């Protein structure tokens, strides 16, 4: 299954914020987690995560710092801020509304189909 670009883009912010709300992380680990959470369905071009992280940082939702976990090469870590948590809560409300609405329409659609299907046959 291929998820369209628009959907990927729209869901990127809440996904990243949600992952960072669990624990601070870095780009590569965030991507791995996204892939695991969606069982590989959500595919991002790897490099595009970073502009997103930078935007969230500029907006104050996350903050970054450099650390060298293996003592050799330094790595940029991100952690969520209070403002980021508030943003995440807001995103969650909005997505909740969207999902509810979609659920409503899916069940209505499947109900119509079960009714109309035999009618067209007959």
């Amino acid at each position, binding site marked *: 299954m291929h998820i369209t670009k628009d959907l990927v883009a729209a869901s990127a912010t809440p996904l990243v914020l949600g992952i960072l709300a669990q624990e601070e992380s870095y780009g590569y680990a965030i991507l791995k987690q996204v892939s695991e959470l969606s069982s590989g369905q959500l595919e991002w071009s790897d490099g*595009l995560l970073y*502009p997103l992280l930078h935007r969230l940082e500029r907006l104050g939702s996350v903050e970054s710092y450099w650390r060298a976990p293996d003592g050799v090469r330094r790595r940029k870590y991100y952690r969520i801020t209070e403002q980021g948590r508030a943003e995440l809560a807001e995103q969650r409300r909005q997505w909740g509304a969207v999902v509810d609405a979609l659920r409503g329409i899916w069940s209505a659609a499947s109900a119509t189909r079960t009714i109309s299907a035999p009618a067209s046959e007959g």
Partner: protein
Amino acid sequence: MTINWDTDLETQIAEWRSYLHRRRELHRADAEELEDHLRSTITELTEAGLHDDEAFLVAVKRMGSVDELSREFTREHADRLWKQLMLTAGDDGPASARSRTDLRVMIGCAVAAAVAIKAPALFGLELGDDGFFYGRNLSLFALPPLAAYFAWRRRTPISGVGLLALLFTFGVVAANAYPLADDADTAVLTALHLPIALWFVVGVAYMGGDWRSDRKRMDYIRFTGEWFIYFVLLAFGGGVLIGLTAGAFEAIGLDTQAVISEWLLPCGAMAAVVVAAWLVEAKQGVIENMAPVLTRVFTPLFAATLLAFLGAAIWTNSWIDIEREPLIIFDFLLVVVLGLLLYTISARDPAARPGIFDRLQLTLVVSALIIDIMVLLAITSRIIEWGSSPNKSAALGENLILLTNLAWSAWLFLGLIRGTAPFARLERWQTNYLAVYAVWAWAVVFAFPPIFAYA
């Protein structure tokens, strides 16, 4: 993370990194972050059993194309495309150390230029009283420091520096050795032509001694255009500064007239010559060249103006009886047309097919040519009527030089549009012709005073 990165892989990663570094919208820190990501992916893939080479390719592929990456980064960091011209690069590195030294040398040269114009005052030559002396020598204050700056930047060998010093000495001799009355015509001609003559000496410094090369000459033409624009901008800024300074001090009852006209204005102008050059060098490749952009805007307008003028001249039948003042205006007009021509050429893609803009250029050049012939006729008739004078001879010579250039340019443009002459010939014609200007300027400076008996 205990993989032994073999050297092959390291080289590949280094290549990829340098590719990122070439993108201005990606800062060093971003490249480092992306590299960390790339390495993580490669580690994972090699652990899964892939070869280094394959792992690298897959990882790069997953990262997405660098074009797309930079586009996304640009969207997020649009400011980076604007703020490229920082005085010194933010990161530490050999490049920024170099640019800091460059800044220091530039400031040194600018100060030298500013001090130079005050030096004659030590010998009792005051700016206010000895205007003619300063007029003749004006270019000798700022241009040697400018040439010195380029000599430093291009690491000119000592022989080259000697040549430059010799040429500037010629300039000093030309401006001061002849027994010229201050208001003699030839003295005024010297004041007008010496800056041009010395500008070519700066060109020798700019081209690092490689002044036979077409490319370098074209670079110098580009540099000249940009330098002029930056100088004008600095002059505007300086004007605002001076106006505000004068106003503010006047408000508290202090008269700054003398300080401004004796110090701020002359020293600032001289320093600006060097600073403008440094700005052009520093922003090279970062910001679009302005001169060609302006040419694009003004070529059609000037072409229309010239055509309208020619139409009006035919309509009113007033060809020949052009007086002295209008003649000078026409000369300026022709120089502007030549400038438009030069900067269009400097920015044109040599491989591009002839298009509508080239036709427009041809129109411009041909109408300028006709005007030039009119001016030449007028000058000749004045010389026949009143006899020759230094000014008229200089004007005649300059118009002949312009005429030759315009005529041959028109011919080459025609060839270009017809597809019989490649663009490179037009380019080479213009760069070769620079030598004619240089020789002429030096000739006026050196030969005119004795020829016209120091009149």
